[in-house]
């Protein structure tokens, strides 16, 4: 009998999106385990099949977002898990931690800035075009709405070749414009992966769009009809978590 795959949800002081992340993972049929950076041990950590670093403000964004968390013991363990190509998802502050730690190499999330004007903290729904070059986004070759909620989300790279985009800010029709780039990111990038494709570092929040009822009316004006038939109707980002569940189940079968 196959055991249900377990995803470790890594917690730092200041993480604040762990409940939604847990809900999105369990909705996709995955088991989860809390991994508090301050108390979990290596055996607990290694028992997980994949890892998610949720959004928040780890260590109050001291020094710069994700910088202090990236020096922690649990991130050393995460580097080892990455060496074994376990799936790793970093959302918002998790994305910043993956960049700061070098798990996503040669990448920095700088303060939001369009042109020479700083924009400050941004909280709004945007559109991204998605590429299917990670275990999380296989089969998603489309434009999807998604919320962003960050002050330091502008992707910078050491060299252009270091950027492996997975999601790029765009208009609803998929056109990439300066106007659709809310934070001034290089190449409109909203999410990147590593060379192996097992890591997804994304600034937008997929856990806030895994159910249809999470979408605002101006994004999904016909959701009332859908929800009347099924209050738990999956939203546009359920597929990302479903892909992870499929990947982990497939891995379990092939290793059984």
């Amino acid at each position, binding site marked *: 009998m196959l055991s249900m795959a377990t995803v470790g949800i890594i917690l730092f002081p200041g993480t604040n999106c762990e409940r939604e992340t847990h809900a999105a993972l369990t909705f996709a049929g995955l088991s989860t385990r809390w991994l508090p950076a301050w108390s979990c041990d290596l055996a607990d950590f290694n028992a997980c099949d994949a890892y998610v670093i949720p959004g928040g403000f780890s260590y109050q964004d*001291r020094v710069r977002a994700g910088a202090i968390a990236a020096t922690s013991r649990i991130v050393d363990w995460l580097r080892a898990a990455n060496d074994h190509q376990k799936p790793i998802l970093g959302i918002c502050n998790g994305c910043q931690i993956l960049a700061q730690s070098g798990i996503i190499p040669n*990448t920095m999330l*700088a303060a939001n*800035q369009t042109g020479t004007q700083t924009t400050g903290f941004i909280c709004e729904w945007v559109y991204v075009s998605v590429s299917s070059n990670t275990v999380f986004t296989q089969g998603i070759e489309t434009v999807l709405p998604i919320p962003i909620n960050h002050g330091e989300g502008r992707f*910078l790279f050491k060299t252009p070749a270091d950027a492996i985009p997975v999601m790029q800010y765009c208009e609803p029709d998929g056109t990439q414009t300066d106007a659709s780039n809310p934070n*001034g990111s290089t190449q409109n990038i909203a999410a990147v992966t590593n060379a192996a494709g097992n890591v997804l570092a994304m600034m937008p929040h997929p856990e806030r769009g895994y159910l249809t009822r999470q979408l605002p009316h101006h994004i999904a004006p016909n959701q009332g009809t859908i929800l009347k038939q099924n209050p738990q109707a999956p939203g546009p980002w359920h597929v990302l978590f479903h892909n992870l569940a499929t990947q982990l189940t497939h891995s379990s079968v092939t290793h059984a």
Partner: protein
Amino acid sequence: MLKIYTWPKNTDLHAISAFAALKNQPGLKALYRFGIITLHAEKPLDTQNVIQLLTDYDCLINPNNTAFSLTEPEFLEHPSYDSYCLNITDKTPVSYSDRVAIINQLGVIHITDMQHNHAWGIHMQAGIHESDVVDTIVEPLLVNTIGETYTLTRGR
């Protein structure tokens, strides 16, 4: 041109966390995080007017929680340790035109431009080589060279 040095009146949690994260680096004795605001003007600025601006208005700092000095702060020097000033600049230029307009509307001083940089004071055990400070303190944590440049200068 006039430089204003700013730092928190309360305990600086940024500095505490950075120090804790770097605790295994040999020779590190103390860290101080501060800001450097550089004001540009066509005529020399009256320092008393600048002090009035910083004390009575919150257009540059919040005077309730931020201390300031028009000369280098004392924590940049130490009688026993080697001290360094790390000055960090974003590679992407930032415009402060909105802030300049607000300051000029107040009428206390008149400036043409301004910049704001983050900086760190670093105290090291005497004898640690400067390149080790860069390799163990500066580039691993305090500066991200992908988006930032820096200068590291030795104190007196």
